[in-house]
């Protein structure tokens, strides 16, 4: 199975990436993609939160790429997917910039949807990246969410 994994500092255009991904998968009837973008507030809801102006993403070079490749291999074992693209940023970001892009291609939609969701759920709990947010009261490391662990665990029995 084809796949492409990129961990990069440079911003990217998720629309362009999706167009390229679709173009190289002419035999796939289903293309599913997810974009995680930087939002302009922290916390569970906007009312009780602070405005976030910038974010810095730190990562573990070597292990991050390796972990993403392992996730792709797991997805490939579970579903018949033709292609996967994962792009993850590091460095400094501002609101609305894409943090992560995951695209999957398969013959029909069920497998593309499932593989894309699985990849994101596992990426959130396994890929070694850390977010640091800056707002009016300073800079803080983002805490991991137990809801992300719960979402990742759903796949263990499936």
């Amino acid at each position, binding site marked *: 199975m084809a796949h492409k994994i990129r961990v990069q500092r440079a911003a990217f255009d998720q629309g362009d990436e999706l167009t390229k991904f679709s173009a190289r998968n002419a035999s796939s009837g289903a293309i599913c993609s997810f974009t995680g973008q930087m939002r302009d507030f922290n916390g569970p809801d906007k009312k009780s939160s602070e405005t976030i102006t910038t974010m810095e993403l730190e990562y573990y070079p070597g292990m991050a790429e390796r972990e993403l490749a392992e996730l792709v291999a797991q997805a490939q074992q579970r579903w018949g997917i033709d292609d996967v693209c994962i792009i993850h940023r590091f460095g400094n970001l501002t609101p609305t910039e894409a943090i992560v892009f995951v695209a999957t291609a398969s013959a029909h939609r069920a497998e593309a949807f499932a593989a894309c969701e699985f990849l994101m759920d596992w990426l959130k709990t396994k890929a070694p990246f850390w977010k640091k947010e800056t707002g009016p009261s300073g800079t803080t*490391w983002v805490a991991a969410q137990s809801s992300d662990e719960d979402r990742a665990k759903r796949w263990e029995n499936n």
Partner: protein
Amino acid sequence: MNILYFAWLRERIGVGAETLSPPAAVETVTQLMDWLSQRSAGHAAAFADRKLIRIAVDQVHSNPATRIIGAKEIAFFPPVTGG
């Protein structure tokens, strides 16, 4: 052995990487954390709450009981928050 620190562990310790040779009695990740904690006040602060620490041995997710004999690279970091 290369020891790597990320995010707030790196900030508390003051460096992102150290090359160290722990004594032979240090056989597990837990024992390594105990040994590292004695290196400085920053190390002690970083390793104070072990529940918040995740571990990779040679770039594979591991746990405090993982044996480190022969390992080349051990990383300590908070729970991941990418995506």
